[in-house]
């Protein structure tokens, strides 16, 4: 039996999953980056390594996705580097072969993918603004002094409709303060935020396109019942949240790499988890591009560079 590791390194979390040849999930881990993505990557790898030694599997190939896929690939070695849209599509088709619309909301990314007969026909990602993503909700939760995990529960207790201007994170804060000063309850404000996020998504990301059923909702924010219900009210249909919604990206990467015929993996092994990893930043002044280059050093040995536009630092 062959085993495939999928890695999804996003803006706020690192996700890893191991699947076997039959696409059964063998191991998975979800870890907050807490501002130190490389540390989190190593911790997640250590966790997978423990699960691997318990169950006795070895990794035959690695697929990496997410916004940090290049840095992760140069660190742990990858047989396939894929963008998040493709990875999410493949995963959604695995969990729901009949899916027509995929909503994915992560830390700083939100995307929508429309499919017809299992083939993606249109997609869109948020641009220029992260209002309507996980980071938006967590900064508002912070402001209201509640944990993001309680968000959904608070929203479900709401009894009154409160409109919050959710176009911009900073302005929505002022609006929240204003609404609180007017005597609105916390529950109603939270529900208003969930609805604002959904409005933003429908307007900026899915551009008011008709979302056909079945709709699958994945990503970290899908754990938030308040947002799920707000979507259901807005779309006037049921929204399905797979139980693996937090790790669909890396499952997709694992499925994608399992389809390639990898003879010998580029995976550098679980030992990477204990390496001493340093990064150095410099601006390459060799041409007018002036690229910001990051040099990755693993156990005093250069592992690679990212950020360069040309072939000079690879």
């Amino acid at each position, binding site marked *: 039996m062959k085993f495939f590791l999928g890695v999804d390194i996003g803006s706020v979390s690192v996700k890893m999953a191991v699947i076997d040849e039959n696409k059964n999930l063998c191991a998975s881990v979800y870890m907050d980056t807490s501002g130190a993505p490389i540390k989190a990557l190593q911790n997640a790898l250590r966790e997978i390594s423990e699960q691997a030694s318990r169950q006795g599997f070895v990794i035959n190939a690695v697929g990496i996705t997410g916004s940090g896929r290049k840095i992760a690939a140069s660190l742990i070695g990858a047989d396939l580097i894929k963008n*998040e849209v*493709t990875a999410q599509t493949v995963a959604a088709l695995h969990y729901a072969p009949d899916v027509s619309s995929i909503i994915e909301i992560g830390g700083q990314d939100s995307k929508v993918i429309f499919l017809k007969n299992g083939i993606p026909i249109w997609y869109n990602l948020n641009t220029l603004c992260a209002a309507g993503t996980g980071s938006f909700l967590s900064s508002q939760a912070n402001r209201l002094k509640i944990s993001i995990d309680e968000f959904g529960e608070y929203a479900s207790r709401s009894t009154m409709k409160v409109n919050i201007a959710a176009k911009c994170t900073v302005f929505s804060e002022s609006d929240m303060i204003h609404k609180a000063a007017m005597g609105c309850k916390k529950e109603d404000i939270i529900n208003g935020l969930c609805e604002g996020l959904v409005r933003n998504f429908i307007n900026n990301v899915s551009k008011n396109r008709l979302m056909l059923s079945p709709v699958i909702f994945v990503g970290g924010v899908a754990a938030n019942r308040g947002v799920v219900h707000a979507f259901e009210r807005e779309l006037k249909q049921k929204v399905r949240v797979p139980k693996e919604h937090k790790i669909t990206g890396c499952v997709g990467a694992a499925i994608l790499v399992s389809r390639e015929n990898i003879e010998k993996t580029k995976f550098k092994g679980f030992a990477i988890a204990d390496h001493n990893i340093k990064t150095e930043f410099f601006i390459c002044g060799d041409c007018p591009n002036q690229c910001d280059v990051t040099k990755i050093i693993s156990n005093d040995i250069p592992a690679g560079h990212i950020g360069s*536009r040309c072939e000079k630092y690879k």
Partner: protein
Amino acid sequence: MQEKFSFPRYGKYTELLADLFRNLGADVITPPQITKRTMELGTKYSPSDICYPFKITLGTMIEAVEQGAGLIAIANSDGWCILRCYSVVQEQIMKDLGYKFEMCPINIRKPIKFFRDMKRICPGLSTIKLIKEVIRFFKKVRELDEAEKNINKNAPIKIGIIGEVYVCNENILNMDLVGRLQRMGIFVDRWLCLSTNLSMLLQDMLGMTNITKFGKIAKKYFPQRIGGHANENLIKLISYAEKKYDGVIMLKPFACNPETAIEPIVEKIGRDYNMPILCLSIDEATLETHFQTRIESFVDILKMSKGER
């Protein structure tokens, strides 16, 4: 003494333009490459909500004047968008900053004034020389444009590019979109290259834009003239759709008014022809990773819908 002359960069045509003016007798300073400093200068001194090309051209002109240029030309002939006011506003901004130079807006739509302006840039210029050199210039431009269209000619996936003319042509701003796609093995048609742009301008001056086959269809979607290259883009979009291109990428600078306004029409045409369209909005804050992810995903989608996976 003859003033040193410069102009804002215009992608891969910059060197050809510099040669043209040099051959016509101008003392040319080839406009400096767009670097981070150019972007910073342009962004710092421009109104913050103005379109990206305004900021970049301003940055380049400042750098050209720093290098000794005393006479700067900028095109304002396609100006039914705010390109019309670039020269006036940019001149004011730079004079307020204390730069000493003269601005010379070039407008091909007004031939008499155009020739007078050219004579100011290139003293002693004769009409015959102008025509001869311009024809030579056109030939070189066409060669350059043909070369781009010969890459991946028989590729299974064809992508058309529409959008705003400056970001479409300046590779530093569009992060080498065409090159990125070509390296993925895709045939790319960027219609807004200088040779087609100039022939479109001629057609427009003769009032012939809407009488072509695709022009008539485009007119049904959007009857008015709106500015920039918005109408031409719609016509090209329809031609890509009718010629069964696999997808179209629309590139526009953030806050570009005509191209932003037609976005819903572009989407509608995409739906009607069942052709995926990716709209990319670019400004000084665009991240390379974001950009690459969007392009890669788009190509994956086109491949998947072709059944290649």
